[in-house]
């Protein structure tokens, strides 16, 4: 059964790009969220195997959302979507419970390598 993914980003553009990458890697994207609040709700409802989380988002940041998701489910796997200049925020996110991170601009093979590693698939 393909691993189930929740994609969180405030830009549809980024979500589509990430979704396509996951589709190419044989994952199933089961949900999307466009802000931190929605992310926490969707995670509770969908219980995905993996969540990709943008950091800078309206209403609630990806870091706060990650913290809440981990509180909700300590085994939740959250991968932060980082960008140039966000390293310290990624560190904060990892402290908040994120499992790993990927860096924009995304290259499909890098993203899939990180994700598969985290999920222990190779």
């Amino acid at each position, binding site marked *: 059964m393909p691993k189930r993914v929740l994609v969180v980003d*405030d830009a*549809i553009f*980024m979500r589509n*790009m990430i979704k396509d990458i996951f589709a190419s890697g044989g994952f199933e994207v089961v949900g999307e969220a466009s802000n931190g609040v929605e992310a926490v709700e969707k995670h509770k409802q969908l219980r995905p195997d993996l969540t990709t989380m943008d950091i800078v988002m309206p209403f609630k940041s990806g870091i706060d959302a990650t913290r809440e998701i981990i509180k909700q489910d300590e085994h939740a796997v959250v991968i932060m979507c980082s960008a140039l*200049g966000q390293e310290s925020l990624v*560190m904060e996110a990892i402290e908040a419970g994120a499992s790993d991170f990927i860096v924009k601009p995304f*290259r499909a093979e890098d993203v899939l390598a990180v994700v598969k590693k985290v999920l222990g698939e190779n």
Partner: protein
Amino acid sequence: MSTDTSKYLGLFVSEATEHLEALTADLVQLEKDPSRQAVESTFRHAHSIKGMAASMGFEATAALAHRLEDLIQLVQGDGSQLTRELGDLLLSAADALLADVRCAEKGEPIATHHELEAKLSAQWSLLSSASGRPNLGQATPSRLPRVGPARRFAVRVQIAPSCQQPGARAFVALKRFSKLGDILELKPAMQDLRSGSIPDGVLSFELESPADEQAIRGALSSVAEVELSSVVPLKKPLQGQQRPAPISPPAANGSDNSRTVRIKTELLDYFLDTVGELSLATAQIREIGKTLPAPVQPSLEEGVGRLHGLVKDLHDKVMSARMTPLSTVTDRLPRAVRDLARRRDRSVELAVSGAEVELDRTILDNLSEPILHILRNCVDHGIESPDERRAANKSEMGRVAISVRRERDRVSLEIEDDGRGMDAPKLKLAAVAKGLLSADAAERLSEKEALMLCCLPGVSTAKDVSEISGRGVGMDAVKRALEELGGTLEIHSQTGLGTRFTLQLPLTVSMVNLMLVAVGREIVGLPVAKVLSALELPASEILKNGEAGFLPHSKGLLPVHQLSQLLGFPSGDTPTTRPYLVMEGDQGRVALAVDRLLGQEEAVLKTLTRPLDLVPGLAGVTILGTGRPVFILDVPRLIAT
């Protein structure tokens, strides 16, 4: 494998444009109120642009957005740093980014922004040396409590040279180890890791853990971009450190749960068009039904009635999907007013209320230019210089207010300034001087009518032709644009107190109330809204002056135009008594002679496509229930050509 980005271009363009428009609005807001919330929102937009541009491979755009983001972040600490000059710089960066997006849209190459980037960097250095870099991330890695007797291991981890964020990567690795025990003797030190400084990508530390060597060796199995170089058991166990306090999760915020999807505007146009066709088809079936034998008529009529109800309901839904809040237009205005005011050395405050009122997007699309032009006039000619305002006992800050109200099936939009007001006598003189009006006629004009003279081509009371407005193309174009939308313009002004422009707009443009008239064997439609009155007169009442005829009317003599001649249709036999329609023309009222009045009908307006849209005087077409297509006329234009 590199990702093919071309299929994301459309989405990139639309989303990036939205972010940049919001960014611009935020920056203007920031100048007034550098609250933390405003800075955060600004930062978020810059950040999104950066990520999206980088993902599309638009490196120059991403680089500029990055500089912009850095600078905004600095302002976050201290809003007082946001001077006008800095505001200008940030806005020009936003403009450059928007220009990049336009280039991307057209498939043109995007040039680098070295100069702008250098300016942003220089500002950044200047400000950061004054305030110190913002401090991000205070917490330390959390650890699980130890169980059982702990042993110590010397661990060495190599981070891949290709890793883009080695500091964060080191954090991920340390977190995996910290689940096994305590980390000590960390090199490089934590503060260096935080800054991303890891010489040669080597991380070394001692791990005090009850776990066995194999478990420790397996700690990094789920982490990419790192390699465990060595794990060496050490002899002497050491005391563990105190466990740090758990990080408390923050309280939940409110949420915006409105569910929306993006839909192409062309698709909405198509829906509306198709629903219009459905409605016409229904009317056709009803007409055919009337010719059928009586026994089948009731059941057909019932079915058609139901179909009609469904189509009407669908039409309403499609129309409501096309409704867009006016804020899509007004959100850009604070920036425009700011720039206009700065260029004219005025202080102007813009207040917008009622921007949540929704209008059909066809109207909105055509509304931003007229509104912008009126605003230009307000700032340029209405609002006085600070000196003049002081002398007139007004506050130095001029005020322009836009207020929008829904009034049943119309929307009223008022743009009001507190400037010097318009000079009606001067407008009259200007119109007479231009030969647009006789001195006599000018004398008879009411104050309100005189103000409308500014909408005649070439009339302007502006003393100087400024760069911003007053170039002669202006209010006439505004009035025309509003009328094309089925709207009206009114001006009220009081010398010394200000001017109010009132725009009355329909909510939608696609349904029109038509006056159907016959000309010879043809039928044409005239928008009822444009018909001031209809009257039947015997030919003897028309005053003749050579070829030209004039109709006596309460407003004076109106020039008579034969619709058949304007259209080039052969007229039927002209009865002695015939109907005349009084309508608004470009040069005042006119009387339109037609053969017969056929009545009013609400019709779905269909816009004309090439080449018919090039024919002057045609506003659109509709199809009557009988299936007969009917052109809708734009009378002022028809007369002008």
